[in-house]
């Protein structure tokens, strides 16, 4: 039970009650929610965590009555929001009490100006115009979007768009704000903006917040309580300290714990007594310093990674500048060589030029000035279809790359177009499907598969062409921890098989196990090109493109400051290894 912040002994008045709630979607057998009993107190910030398919979205939709009123299906139990039964009151009535913000900032904005976006719900609720004119600037100020009222939503950044969606929900003056993975499509800066806004609304205006997501570090920082859902069932509810400190349970449920918690569990396993597992960075740094005072610490032996490559680069960029039709300079004088067999990570805030750069490799874009060479040949002299045989491109959203009726047809598509004979096609399709573990799904419609599997279908289709280079453009966006790791594991297998791999992602904590070299981009320029250990510790360069290194790196830097020595560590295991007798061997 949540407690009153001013007096932790007092339980909060429940705003939301769920009594033995179960729900089954139409034409399915498995319950999406199973026997969930939960109270959410007024003014509480509840984090909702769980792997993909755990029921987080279903629970969020049920709070606004969309489930089951929109979807149908079978609903059991009893749920109230602000005293209203969610089965008995229409969604439009519940909308007065529940504001909803969804994952994709693009699809939830429908108006042609910021003020119209905010006004839409108010207009539907018959709020007088004079009242709207008072509320709109007020909510814009609350989400720090003052001065944007007349702008078109498309002029806003991803983070600003999500804050606009929050403002639109907030204008109704709801009792409850429900956010379903609101930061999963955003870059770190956008995510930070959204969390800061929601935190402020919760703490200063007392808005009750339910936020589903995978952002462990941020939820540990901001949530009052965290609820863990697995297979539709509520497995645990408790404070972030209770939930996130139980790293073993989280890992069992395929949920990524905050790196700081993971680090201290490792340190404890190394034999160092840790009284309490910290789940927030500042507590982690304090605990690390305390531990370093009483226990010997040594820099683990780490074999340095060399990224020095010789010979003709496979991909070469020479003074590349790209200016879009609207005058936006997306790339400015970028030069870069990528050699065969490298695993390169490209990072930078949204708009840094990452996707613009890789699209040049495929001739989806042509240089405004400068040159892009693939194996020494200028891309101007090649076609996209010719380049696609050598360079595979996995887009962020696999659904955009699926256009056949079966998995098998999808994988065979390119081969048929390139007029391979039937035997060769059959061989390559079988080879690709086996490599990606899709043999059993070959007859299924690709869009009927889960998102992670759909990404594998796209990769299988690309591999059938046997490309030399595979580019993964934000493959981890919108994926849970297990899904993200599964895709990156495939990239690792391809790398081991000799392919050149390029990955663009904002999820830096995932990459030490995979990448060797990091290219940091900011505002269309190449800011840094270095081995991963150097790049992840170049905090000033990263900050200039609004990127914060993973918590393990920040802990390592705190240790370095404490001991006045260099600790070029990247992962919780490496930080924990500083406390072991023999150190860590990379």
């Amino acid at each position, binding site marked *: 039970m949540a407690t009153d912040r001013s007096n932790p002994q007092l339980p909060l008045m429940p705003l939301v009650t769920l009594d033995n709630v179960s729900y089954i979607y139409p034409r399915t057998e498995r319950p999406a929610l199973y026997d969930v009993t939960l109270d959410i107190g007024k003014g509480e910030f509840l984090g909702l965590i769980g792997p993909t398919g755990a029921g987080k979205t279903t629970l969020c939709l049920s709070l606004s009555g969309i489930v089951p009123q929109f979807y149908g299906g079978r609903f059991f139990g009893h749920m109230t929001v602000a005293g209203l039964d969610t089965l008995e009151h229409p969604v439009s009535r519940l909308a007065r009490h529940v504001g909803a913000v969804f994952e994709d900032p693009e699809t939830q904005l429908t*108006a042609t100006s910021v003020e119209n976006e905010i006004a839409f719900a108010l207009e539907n609720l018959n709020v007088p115009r004079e009242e709207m004119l008072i509320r709109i600037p007020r909510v814009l100020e609350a989400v720090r979007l003052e001065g944007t009222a007349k702008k078109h939503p498309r002029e806003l950044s991803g983070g600003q768009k999500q804050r606009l969606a929050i403002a639109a929900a907030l204008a109704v003056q709801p009792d409850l704000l429900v956010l379903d993975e609101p930061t999963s499509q955003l870059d770190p800066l956008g995510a930070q903006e959204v969390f800061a806004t929601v935190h402020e609304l919760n703490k200063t205006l007392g808005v009750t917040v339910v936020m589903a997501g995978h952002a462990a570090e941020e939820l540990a920082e901001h949530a009052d309580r965290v609820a863990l859902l697995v297979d539709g069932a509520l497995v645990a509810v408790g404070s972030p300290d209770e939930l996130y400190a139980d790293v073993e349970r989280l890992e069992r449920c395929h949920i990524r714990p905050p790196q700081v918690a993971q680090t201290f569990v490792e340190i404890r396993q190394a034999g160092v007594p840790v009284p309490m597992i910290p789940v927030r960075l500042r507590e982690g740094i304090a605990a690390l310093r305390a531990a370093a005072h009483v226990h010997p610490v040594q820099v683990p032996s780490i074999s340095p990674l060399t990224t020095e490559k010789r010979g003709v680069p496979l991909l070469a960029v020479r003074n590349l500048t790209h200016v879009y039709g609207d005058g936006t300079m997306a790339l400015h004088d970028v030069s870069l060589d990528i050699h065969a067999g490298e695993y390169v990570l490209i990072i930078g805030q949204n708009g840094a030029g990452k996707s613009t750069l890789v699209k040049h490799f495929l001739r*989806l874009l042509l240089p405004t000035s400068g040159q892009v060479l693939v194996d020494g040949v200028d891309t101007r002299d090649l076609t996209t*279809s010719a380049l696609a045989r050598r360079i595979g491109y996995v887009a962020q959203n696999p659904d*955009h*790359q*699926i256009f056949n009726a079966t998995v098998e047809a999808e994988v065979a598509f390119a081969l048929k177009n390139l007029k391979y004979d039937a035997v060769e096609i059959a061989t390559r399709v079988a080879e690709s499907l086996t490599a990606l573990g899709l043999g059993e799904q070959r007859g299924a419609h690709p869009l009927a598969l889960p998102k992670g599997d759909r990404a594998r279908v796209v990769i299988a289709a690309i591999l059938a062409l046997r490309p030399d280079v595979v580019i993964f453009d934000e493959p981890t966006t919108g994926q849970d921890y297990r899904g993200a790791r599964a895709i990156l594991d495939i990239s690792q297998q391809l790398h081991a098989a000799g392919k050149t791999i390029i990955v663009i992602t904002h999820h830096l904590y995932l990459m030490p196990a995979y990448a060797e070299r990091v290219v940091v981009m900011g505002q269309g320029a190449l800011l840094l090109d270095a081995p991963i250990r150097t790049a992840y510790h170049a905090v000033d360069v990263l900050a200039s493109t609004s990127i914060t290194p993973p918590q393990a790196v920040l802990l390592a830097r705190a240790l370095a400051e404490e001991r006045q020595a260099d600790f070029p560590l990247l992962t919780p295991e490496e930080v924990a290894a500083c406390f072991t007798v023999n150190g860590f061997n990379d």
Partner: protein
Amino acid sequence: MSALTLPTVERDSFFTRLDFRSKLALMAAITGVALVWESPVLGGALALVVMLACLAVGVKCSYLRTVLTLLLPFAVFMMVMQGFGGADLVRARLHRETLTPLFTFPASWAIIGGGMMTWEGVLYALNVVCKTLTMILVLPLGIFTTDVNAMVIGMVKIRIPYRIAFIFSATLRFFPMLFEEIQTIIEAQRLRGFAFEALGPLKRLRVYAKIAVPLILGALVKSQTLDIVLQTRAFTGSSQRTYLHETRLRAADYAVIAGSGLFVIVAAIAYYGWGIGCFGKW
């Protein structure tokens, strides 16, 4: 860029400041007169004026070029059909039996041998093409210069139910999204080695036909998401709602509405009284 965007002009002009109701009146007047006129000269002049107006308010040249390119096959088809085969219709419109031959295919040619292209047939085809062009171009003139929200309010003001006005505006926003989806799918195919650029027009059409399934599936997913978003924003489609923006007809609007009415009346009197605009009085 958001998927749900409608092409709009960037230039602020007299036309962008007009109320949507006055634009509707103007669009209706131009469309009505274009439908009635059969004179290729007057029809052509009207199409030209509308096209110049489009340019003046800021409709992009590239858009006009696309419209003209798409209309070209239709124009050629009409010329052939009316030039060679529309003699009976043209004679009936002109109330005379003799038409002016432009050229005749040698009688010895198979199928088309003896076929005669007439001057009047070509002019009739031109009249149809100009009508079509006027009616197509009047749409960007009215719609690209108006904010979707203002369109909805304007339609509600003329007593069109809000639900229908909203569906109209949602449809307008949906077209660019569909176009964007098509481009995404074609790009995905090119990224699988599919040489779209090397295909002829017919093969391209076949490719477009094939992408209908993923396109429709994608559109359904997006429309369902949009539906959920609208419901959480208390949307019911009811006309019992308030509006942030008020719309009021100003002097310029009244002038445009009156001018549109006057144009229709004068065109009708001229047409029925003196035959101005009739086919054959060019």
